[in-house]
């Protein structure tokens, strides 16, 4: 077993100083780590090496991978715009297995349940480890210590930062594209597997040594709009099917029918109203979950009633946001990923529906980003502690089950609200200490539960504004006690001292460690 040199970081967590042969910087507090040096860059290419007729078409993905120099230990990246309907990642590793390639690093922008079929390649050593997210079965596999290397979890913005800063060197980027031309220009907003945009693949196209576009809908040059520039692309491959359209639209993008979640949404909307957030020209971001979507519709109702409109809504776009845009209740949608076909249509047709990327919205090592400019963001969490630290990657039983997504990046908004049930089945959500810290408490402002709302004591302004509210404002300690009174005080999971994954903060430092579960 590997011995780790552990240090205590600024969040009070023990983190390793080196994993997978790479040196790490422990979390130093928000904004305290100052990067130096220059951005990373891919090798300089020359047109002399590329066909002057612009045709980069290669007969198969296998040939494209071989031509890209696929070999042991390389880092292969993919994007997750096809969500649970991705058919490309699997093919890459099938080919690698066939070619007897070992120790690859898979660097997806997120993984989904459909990727649990890759476990066999983690077991046989085709894949050494994953840097991205480890959801569902992959999370279980990782937490049980079965992955050869140590997993790395990053936010969407943190992924862009890691590529830009050279923390991650992508050898081959494979970008599945719903529509493309043979030069490599590509877009996600049209074609049989349209997914809206391709923003998560932007960094990959800019920084990878080799870039392969895989499409099932080639059009004659030019493919417009070119969300991905063909000038960054080495090879283009045409295959039968790159994704399953009905799974690209995720099931989580319907408004909740659960009365308990609707109550959370209603309370959150009332909170925003009383805090004076819902005013002309405001901006908001609501995630993909049913509760967050419902809050969006409450905002729309409020705008209609008051005769006001939002300046912009950050998406995850969906039919509800599109309706707001088309009804004139928001000037713009700044879209980071499209959750349903209405979102895809709107992005294609409506100039107010803008294509954004982790670079514009989330990258912390840039000259500002959009996420900090949003008035209010509604997010989820698996756990929150009495210091408002929150967890989104693991469950209270210690198992890694979710990715970070844009969650960490969104915490920088002017008001971060987590509407969460006080307990799920029997599991209390508010604890003394979260299993894994993903976000420091100082960035988390309000916890809304069905049994009470806690405002972070740092937000004296919000406390003052809600002073005479009819909402049940309580302390976070009161909420914790209430949850434990109903459920009982839970035991803690037992871990070994083996590191199975690390969680990066938005600046690339290590905020927490995921330990192997002791079964």
């Amino acid at each position, binding site marked *: 077993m590997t011995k780790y040199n552990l240090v205590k970081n600024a969040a009070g967590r023990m983190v390793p100083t080196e994993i997978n042969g790479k040196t790490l910087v422990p979390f130093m507090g928000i904004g305290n780590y100052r990067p130096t040096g220059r951005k990373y860059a891919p090798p300089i290419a020359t047109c002399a090496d590329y066909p002057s007729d612009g045709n980069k078409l290669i007969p198969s993905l296998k040939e494209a991978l071989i031509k890209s120099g696929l070999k042991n230990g390389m880092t292969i990246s993919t994007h997750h715009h096809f969500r649970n309907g991705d058919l490309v990642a699997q093919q890459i590793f099938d080919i690698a297995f066939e070619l007897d390639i070992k120790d690859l690093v898979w660097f997806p922008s997120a993984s989904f349940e459909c990727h649990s079929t890759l476990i066999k390649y983690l077991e046989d050593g085709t894949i050494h480890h994953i840097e991205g997210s480890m959801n569902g079965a992959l999370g279980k596999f990782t937490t049980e210590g079965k992955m050869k290397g140590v997993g790395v979890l990053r936010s969407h913005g943190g992924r862009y930062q890691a590529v830009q800063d050279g923390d991650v060197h992508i050898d081959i980027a494979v970008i599945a594209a719903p529509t493309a031309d043979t030069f490599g220009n590509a877009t996600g907003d049209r074609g049989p597997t349209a997914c809206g945009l391709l923003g998560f693949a932007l960094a990959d196209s800019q920084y990878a040594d080799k870039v392969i576009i895989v499409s099932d809908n080639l059009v004659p040059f030019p493919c417009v709009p070119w969300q991905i520039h063909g000038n960054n692309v080495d090879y283009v491959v045409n295959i039968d099917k790159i994704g399953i359209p009905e799974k690209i639209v995720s099931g989580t993008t319907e408004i909740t029918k659960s009365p308990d979640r609707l109550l959370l949404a209603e309370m959150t909307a009332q909170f925003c109203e009383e805090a004076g957030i819902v005013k002309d020209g405001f901006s908001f971001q609501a995630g993909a979950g049913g509760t967050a979507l419902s809050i969006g519709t409450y905002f729309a109702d409020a705008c209609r009633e008051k005769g006001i409109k939002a300046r912009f809504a950050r998406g995850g776009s969906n039919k509800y946001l599109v309706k707001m845009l088309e009804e004139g209740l928001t000037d713009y949608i700044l879209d980071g990923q499209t959750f349903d076909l209405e979102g895809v249509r709107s992005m294609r047709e409506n100039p107010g529906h803008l294509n954004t990327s982790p670079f514009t919205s989330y990258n912390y090592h840039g000259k500002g980003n959009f996420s900090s400019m949003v008035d209010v963001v509604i997010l989820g969490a698996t756990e929150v502690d009495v210091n408002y630290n929150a967890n989104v990657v693991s469950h209270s*039983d210690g198992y890694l089950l979710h990715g970070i997504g844009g969650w960490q990046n969104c915490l920088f908004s002017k008001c971060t609200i987590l509407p969460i049930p006080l307990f799920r089945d029997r599991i209390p959500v508010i604890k003394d200490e979260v299993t894994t810290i993903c976000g420091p408490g100082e960035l988390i402002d309000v916890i809304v539960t069905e049994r009470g709302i806690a405002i972070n004591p740092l937000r004296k302004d919000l406390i003052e504004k809600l002073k005479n509210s009819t909402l049940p404002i309580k302390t976070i300690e009161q909420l914790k006690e209430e949850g434990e009174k109903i459920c009982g005080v839970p035991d803690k999971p037992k871990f070994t001292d083996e590191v199975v994954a690390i969680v990066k903060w938005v600046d690339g430092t290590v905020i927490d460690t995921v330990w192997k579960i002791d079964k």
Partner: protein
Amino acid sequence: MDKIASAGNKGKGIRSDCFVSIEITKNSGLEIQLESKVKVLYGESIKKLVHEIFSFFGITNAKVIIEDFGALPFVLAARIEAAIKQLINTEKEFLTAFLEENKYQTTRERNRISRLYLPGNTPPLMINAGVHKPDGIILDLEDAVAPAKKGEARFLVRNALRSLDFYGVERMVRINQVPKGLEDLDYIIPHNVNLILIPKAESADQIIQVENKIKEIQNKKGINHPVWYMPIIESSLGVLKSLEIAQSSKNIVAMAIGLEDYTADLGTKRTLEATESFFARCQVVNACRAAGIQPIDSVFSDVADMEGLKQNVLKSKSIGFDGMGCIHPRQIKVIHDNYAPDNDEIEKAKKIVNAFIEATEKGLGVVSLGTKMIDPPVVKRAQKLIDLAINTGKLSKNWREIENDKV
């Protein structure tokens, strides 16, 4: 070999519940097999509870299999006890903690605009019911519980009355039809149920039977505070006898109509226009008013149709009902908002009440508003409407002071 007893629910989609099977054995001690989605966090605590319950009932040798889907302790305890009592005969009851928060009484006059029906054997629907703030929560032992589950539901309802926080809403139980429903009372009367719904009421005698059984239990347990009744009229005989039923006990505070069974009894179909039940509803309203109790309307069964519900409430209010049942928490707000007086009604009532108070202060016998004389019943109705507006949060309690300050 002893038989195996079981209780609880399992299968796809089951949450906050568990399935327990128990076999009494000869001398192997207590053998516990636990499968639980919260095993890491609560495995030890669940096993401790099992030991506690078995030792309480004096059982030392048994094989216990628990499939747990995140059940709260009061649910686990109810399931285990329900299974044990299929195997042994005992008077003993394993009672979970009685929350201080649940030891309140309700008044005869309180609002009963909304009352939320919850199936008595379905824990996940119970747990958050109180936070949705209906006026009352009904734990249903009757139609919402499958015949084979009636026995175990009693333990669950009993434990819920003790250990689940109702957040101040009126605590109601619908018992089974008399005479079977009389047995339900043993499980609920000692645990501070506020109101009993008596289904398919067709005679004063049924109510008296319930009342006598309640008195018997109360005397045995030394309980003094009243338990209210709400008979439900669900048949043509019930409709025709509604006055007799409404007047059968002083503890009747409200009477409801159940239209699904009633229309079936009539041999007709329930429609949105509700012409078929117009007579029955008017009859029940009149019987209630004559007896001085609250008339309560039937549930509206399409939980997705909020506009239909609203129209239904407005019609119900215009006939004279004070409230109705609901089968989904989303219906509560629509029901409250639309039984509550609207702004025009409140404004008119305020003027009348003001005129009355001013006339009284001046010692005038006749109340007038502008050029119109106002009869005493009009004043009374206005005062009632103001009270309702205050109770439903549409008007401040101190509205006269606030408005006089403005002047």
